[in-house]
């Protein structure tokens, strides 16, 4: 490594630090007392260092308010959605990638067309449908619509296409049926792709805002993303800035931890998803 490399790293550290500042500030404010924040948000080094320090905001979150409940809702919805999407995507992806049957090409095309339909184009009809079923304000109302999005099917289909045929054929020669091949041979091989899809779906579920906003009107069914939106507009009066910021930190914790542990998969997942979807 030459000197210009070190200059480059040093030069990039400045924008990188600036990039981190907003997040740091949120974390720092969440550790400062509300009485101080009501007066000033720049106590020590523009408020970037939490002095005076307190953990009271976090303690308060777990005693009053609905943040823990919303957090739990988000977990239930995100895990449920992830399992559901994995189930329908691996099966359909395998069938479209590996099995021969009449109508395969038209079905593949029909699924491909669905990639063009954004959530925003269907959320009104979905709302009326779920209202007719009386499904709003429930976990399944938050989970089900995402199970219809074909992106997972395509991720899995592409993956299964890349697996050599010999493995399947050997199993066929031994007289193993297609469903067993799928379950015992292909699924174990598909773990990396399933991991990517799981992370993509979990991130989407955790961060989705528009559909929970229209579907969950009762506060008991808010996800943390929605709950945070509901308390941020009047943060100063109602809850105190420190506590709202603590909620923000709690809301971000799972996805940030997921990102730091599974960075490679997260990057793959978000690249494959192409968007926040």
């Amino acid at each position, binding site marked *: 490594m030459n000197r210009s490399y070190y200059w480059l790293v040093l030069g990039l550290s400045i924008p990188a630090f600036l990039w981190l500042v907003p*997040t740091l500030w*949120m974390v720092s404010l969440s550790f400062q007392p509300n009485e101080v924040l009501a007066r000033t948000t720049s106590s020590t080094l523009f408020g970037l260092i939490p002095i005076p320090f307190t953990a009271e905001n976090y303690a308060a979150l777990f005693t009053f308010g609905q943040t823990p409940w919303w957090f739990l809702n988000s977990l239930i919805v995100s895990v449920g959605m992830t399992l559901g999407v994995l189930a329908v995507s691996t099966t359909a992806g395998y069938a479209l990638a590996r099995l021969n049957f009449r109508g395969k090409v038209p079905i593949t095309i029909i699924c491909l067309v669905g990639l063009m339909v954004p959530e*925003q184009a269907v959320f*009104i*009809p*979905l709302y009326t449908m779920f209202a007719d079923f009386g499904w709003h304000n429930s976990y399944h109302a938050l989970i089900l619509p995402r199970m219809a999005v074909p992106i997972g099917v395509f991720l899995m289909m592409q993956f299964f296409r890349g697996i050599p045929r010999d493995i399947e054929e050997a199993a066929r*020669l031994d007289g193993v049926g297609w*469903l067993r091949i799928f379950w015992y041979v292909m699924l174990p091989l598909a773990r990396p792709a399933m991991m990517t899809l799981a992370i993509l779906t979990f991130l989407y579920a955790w961060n989705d805002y528009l559909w929970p906003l229209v579907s969950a009107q009762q506060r008991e069914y808010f996800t943390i993303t929605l709950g*945070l939106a509901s308390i941020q507009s009047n943060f100063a009066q109602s809850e105190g800035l420190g506590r709202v910021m603590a909620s923000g930190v709690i809301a971000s914790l799972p996805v940030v931890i997921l990102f730091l542990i599974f960075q490679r998969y997260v990057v793959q997942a978000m690249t494959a998803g192409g968007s*926040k979807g």
Partner: protein
Amino acid sequence: MQNPRKPASRLSQTQAAWILLAPFLFTYGLFLIYPFFRGFWISLHDWNLLAVAFNPDAKQFVGLRNYERVMWGRNIEWGPLAAPFWQLLGIAGLAVSVLLRGTKRLSRFNAIALGVASVLVIILPGFHPGEEGRWYDRRFWPTVANTIVFVGLAVPGVTISALLLAAALNRETRAMGALRTLFFLSQVLSVTVVTLIWQIMFSPRQGLIANITETFGGTPINWLTDEQFAMAAIVIATIWWSLGIAMILFLAGLQDISKDIYEAAALDNAKGARAFWYVTLPNLKRTVTLVVVLQIILHFQVFGQSHLMTQGGPNDTTQVLVRYIYQTGFRDSELGRASAMAVFLFVIMGTFSVIQFIVGREKT
């Protein structure tokens, strides 16, 4: 497929395929295909959310009237110089596309794309209400224009900064890896966390930006309530939020450029910025197009930033299409009109999805 010996199980391949496909096709049909067509159907009705909820027969078929009420007006005229700036820009764009195509400096696909876009820029801004005329919905087209402005600022902002960062970070060392992680981190946050952070960052009384400005003797700006700055504020928050994906896509693209080209260029004395301009950029063309199209699709759906940071204000300057659809449908209960707008949104996004599909398939 060749089938060795006898069928191994009682299920034929076709049966197995349908069993495996059934769960997905069921949810897909019920929660995507059906709602999609139902959306069209709702858009053809006068459909009040509350009235229909109490009495399913309270809707009334009105044909295309919702589209007319949203997009059209009384005495709408078309003039060749109604919006001279945009129309001249369109003519210039058309000329450029014809010229560059004539000299073969533009691929056919790009030439057609630029040409079509230019023609639209010439035609669309030309419509305006004539004497005693007015738009039926005064807010719709300004809202579309705001959305386009937002996309027009956020997409180049994200693309250029992500491209520069990716070029700088394109080395496999620990330090570079850590820096990439830092720049990508904000991408995984939810829109409500992003708006929470930036609302307070921009606050004139409590905000970090205001605090720093004041320390240096400046007057804090009312970012979110000043018509001049509100759009800029949500664009800044958006760039901060969504730089990560673009950067990662560019890094992937950069990996595909062979080192030999750089070495050859270095012999010709092209290093640093020159190498970036003459070697990196031409080789990244396809990735750049892909990132731009992806970002257009992504940012056209902007909702949370506007809904939570500025509530569409001040004076509707940050009102965007999805927020208008949401409000029309769920605050004003006008599901029919909201659906007509959603169909409009779908047509635009669908067009860009098709472009994305074509670009993604194009091998260079």
